[in-house]
Structure formats: C-alpha cells, structure tokens
C-alpha cells in the first residue's frame, strides 16, 4: 500500500513468557514415559546398573531445562499494518505471512493446559490449500482476543 517497511525487516515480537512454563510442562509430560521406562529397567536389573537410567535421566533433565527456552526464543510474530507474520521452528524454520485481507475466519482456542497459564492460540483460516490454518500459540489470552477483534475490524473496514 504505502511505503511501509517490508514486514520481514521488522523485529519479531516475542511470545508471552508464560509460554516457557507451558512448554516445560508439556516436555515434562512427554519425557515421563521414557524416564519411567528407564527406571523400571533399572529396578528390574536387566542391564548393568546405571547403564540406561543415568543417560536417560541426564538427557531428560537437559531437555527439560534447555528446550522450552530455545523454543520460546525461536518463535515470534510481527503485527503489520495489513498483515500478520508468524515465525516458528527451531530446525525447520517457517516464516508465514498472512495479509488481513486474506483471512476467511478466525478462532481463539484455549486448551486445558493453556488455560492454566492464561495463554491462548490465535488461528487464522485462509482459503489456500497450503497453510489453510495458521496458528499462533503462546499469546496471552487477552491479547489473542484483542488481535482477533482488531483483524475483524480491519476486515469489516475494508470489505466491499
């Protein structure tokens, strides 16, 4: 439209800090199974003591500490005048931009764990086959609602 700087150059807004705690909880739940299995093997004394349990517990501990923070840092979003840019991915980095004019409809969802931390997910639906739904997780619930209303207002303003 006007000569606004391209969205790609703008700095990313980081996600809500509570997201780190949410990811830590999810990682903990996911790691519980291998850790319990390793401890069970240890108790059953099938292998030399400490051969399995020690590396597994150490790896789980390292992941629990490092992964949430790294993921939080890798994600972000950028709110432009007429588009929303969502960035995610540690290894496979995905940088998705959806102009507001292309949003078919919007959802704000809150899973049970997200509700615990006061977070929400904003989901944009487009008409494309690829990226038909773009989800932005890790927003504060109130902020997600505010963004949803802002996009709706933008759409209403510019619709013919």
């Amino acid at each position, binding site marked *: 439209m006007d000569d606004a700087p391209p969205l790609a150059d703008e700095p990313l807004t980081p996600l809500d800090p509570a997201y780190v705690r949410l990811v830590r909880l999810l990682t903990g739940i996911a790691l519980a199974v291998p850790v319990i299995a390793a401890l069970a093997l240890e108790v059953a004394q099938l292998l030399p003591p400490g051969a399995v349990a020690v590396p597994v517990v150490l790896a789980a501990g390292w992941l629990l500490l490092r992964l949430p923070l790294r993921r939080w840092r890798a994600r972000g979003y950028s709110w432009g005048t007429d588009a929303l840019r969502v960035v995610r991915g540690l*290894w*496979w980095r995905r940088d*998705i931009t959806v102009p507001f004019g*292309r949003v078919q409809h919007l959802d704000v969802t809150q899973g049970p764990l997200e509700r615990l931390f006061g977070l929400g997910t904003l989901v944009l639906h487009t008409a*494309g086959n690829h990226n038909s739904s773009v989800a932005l997780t890790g927003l504060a619930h109130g902020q997600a609602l505010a963004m949803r209303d802002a996009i709706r207002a933008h759409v*209403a303003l510019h619709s013919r």
Partner: protein
Amino acid sequence: MVAGVLASLPRAALSIVAAIAGARTIGDRGIMAGLLVVALVVTLGWVVLAWRHHRYLIGPDDLRIEQGILSRQVRAIPYDRIHDVALREPLVARLFGLAEVAFDTGTGGKDEAKLAFVTRDEGARLRDTVRARRAGVVDAPADATMVQEQEVARTLFVLTPARLLLFGIFEFSLVVLAVLAGAAQQLDFLLPFELYDWREWREIGGGPLHWLLGLGLAVQVVAAVLGLLLLIPVGLLTGIVRTALRDWGFRLEETSRGLRRRRGLLTLSDVVMPLERVQALVLGTGLLRRRWGWHGLQAISLAQDSKDQSHTLVPFAQMAEVAPVAALAGLPLPGEGQAWQRASAGWRNHRMVLSAVLPGLIGLGMLVLPLDLPAGAALPAAVSLWLVAVVLAFRQYYLWRHNRHALADGLLYSREGWLSPRLAIAAPAKLQSAELRQGPLARLGQYADLHLGLAGGTLALHGLPVEQARAIHSALLARMAAVDFSAANLHAPDPPAT
C-alpha cells in the same frame, strides 16, 4: 417419476451387490432367493421414498431444497451465493431425457447442493431463473422464458474427433489389465478354475504349450515378446476409449459469465467457470507429446466441478492455441525473451548428494559387511547400486538446470520438471499466504523454499538463494496487500488497478 427412480438406481446398486455377495455364503437356495428379493424390494422402496422427499422451491430471495427421509434437511441458498448452475447428464439419465443440476456455492465441491434428475428443460429453466434472479431482476417470473440474454459466446477451443483420436493415442494406458486382475481376484469364485494354481494354467495351455516348450528357448523368448507386443493395441484402445468417454465434443467458449466448457460422451457435463475465480493456470505436457508440441492447460480454481475431474481448459493443443486462452484469463504465457532465474547451486549440490547417498551406502554395505551373499555377487551388486546413485545424482542436476522461475509484469511463473515440464502461472493478487521455509541444510547452504498459499492447488518455489527468496517474498506481499478481498474472497470483481 419412474424415470427419476430408474435413473437413481445405479447408485442403489451397491447395496444390491452387497446383498448378493453376502447371500451367496448361505447354502440354501430358497433362502438366498428370498433374501435377494427382500433386498431388492427394500432398496427400491428406499429410492422411491427418497425421491419423493426431495423437493425444491424457487423463492423470491433464495432457492430451497428439501431432502431426506429420516433426517430431513432444508437448505436455503440465497441467489447471490449461487455462482453458477452446472448441468450434468449421466448416461442413464440422458436416456430418459433427464439432467442433474448442481449449484456452485463456492464451497469447492464439499457438501454441494444438487438436484438429481429433473428434465432437461427444467434444468435449463432453473439455470436461467437463477441467473436472472442473481442479476437482480427481482420481478423475474418463476418461468423465466424471457431470460435468453443475448449470450454472445466466443468459441475458444474445440476438440475435433481427429485430434481426440491423437489425444487418445498419447493417453496410452494399461489400466484395463489392472482392472481385470483386480476383478479376477475379487470374483474368483465365479471362474471355473483355481486362479493361483499354476498347474491349472498349464492344463489350459495344454497341447500348444507343450509343443512350445518343446521347441527351445529362442522360440519361447520370441513368443513372450509377441505376447508383450499384444499389450500395445490393448493400451492404445484403452487410452482412446477413456479419452473419448471423457472429452468427446470438448468445447471451450467465452461467455459473459465466464469460461463455459462442455464435454463428455456418455455423461455430458456443462460447466461455467467465472474468470475471477481462476487462481492460477498450469500448463502441462507429457514425455512423448512434448516432442510434437502438445500441451494441456488446467486452471486452479475454486469453481465447482465434478469431483473426480479437474478444471481442464484446453486438454490437448499446440502452444499457439493455448496462448489466447491463457491471455483471456489474465495469466498470459511467458514470452520468448523472459528472464528466468534458477534455484541456488547449494540446493542443487545438497540434493545431488542426498539422492545418491542411500544407494551408495547400501552398495558399500554389500561390499564391506559380512553378509551371506552368493560368491561373487557382492561386487556386481554394489557396482550397480553405485550406478543407480550416479544416475539419481545426475537427475537432480538436470532438474536443477530445467527448473526456473520469474516474477515479471506482476505475474509469478514457475517451471518444474525435466522431461515433461509443468509451468504454473499465478497472479500475486490471488495468493492467500506466503511462507519462507528453511531447514537445517538450507541454512547451511544459504537457500530457502517459498511456499505460496493458493486456493485449490499448490505452488512452491524450492531452493531459491536466500536474498532472492526474500526479495520475491516482499514483492509478492506488497502486491497481495494492495488488493483486499476481505468480503467473500470469491465474489471479488476485478481488482483495482494498482
């Protein structure tokens, strides 16, 4: 009414077939026959009831369709939500002079509103009435015999029978053998011999086969080759028949409402695709037909079409015949002097290595690992696997050489494929989202993939150098943002000149 019911029967055939299949396991003939009769009666009764409960009403603002026996469904479609009305005439319906009316409401084929089997005249009347109501002629009488707007239709492309034959030849297909094999397996209880017992096959061969076996290896080889050669006429015939059934009388016209396409031999299909619904065009070709310059043009569109058929605009034509159609859709073919760009060399190198690594490693493993292979087989096997690796690597190289893209005159062109290349032409204004993707290797090699959201299809540019990817990404976003399709993406009139 009888005609409508009879025309609906093919759909009910599945339940009858299931009843037959289930019944044949019961030994007693009497019970079998009885069950069959019951199944037939129930199915017929259901079809009749369903037909009686399927009704429609042309209201002042909307079209109402009622259907369903147990769970009744009333659908009200406002006229301005109906983009167009398509008429389809399956063979059975055509014999009785009936047609199926499908209302294109922009849902892209899911949950479409259909009226199965009204008379052909009624179908045409419905189409005219809906168009009239849409055009805002509110007082249009329900029987809109006056609505013959002077439809000036310009013919864009016609598939003559001679060319249809040539097309059919290029569509060589051995699918009939697969169908026969599948049928033989399913219905083996009907065949007079055991399908999988090779001794039975030998019995059938019998005398001639013994004579052949007695003649020696050379003759057997010749006989086998002749047998394979027999497949050629079978394949040609299948291709021609399938193409004729699908594309007989193919006709593409430009009308005031969009591109109108008619085709079909047994099932006549008549569809209008509004031009603004065309999201992108794809120009395809085949391995052989490319030598003679034959191409096909398809549209990527949200317009509704019969579920298993694509939006083919021009099935089989020379480039000079395709160009005007593409230009009409606002997505002209690239010119001769177009400046193309290639993917990154780093991407090419990574792809070459990745494609060769697996066969190479397996070959190495065969040589090095202590496997239980017959003596002297390890080396030839390893060498052939390495040759495979080299071939795959070179294929990636040629793909890199032939893939190209360009962003010019406000259009995005992307060509992919080596032996039968496929050219996609998209207008940035029609794109839905833009994504830059980089995997760990991509970050190492300084390249990125650009994935574009397109309604009804896919478009992606792979392995672009990072700077170029970002530049194209920003340019596309600038054009996308300039045109706002907020309200009913699919209704948008021509975008304002930017």
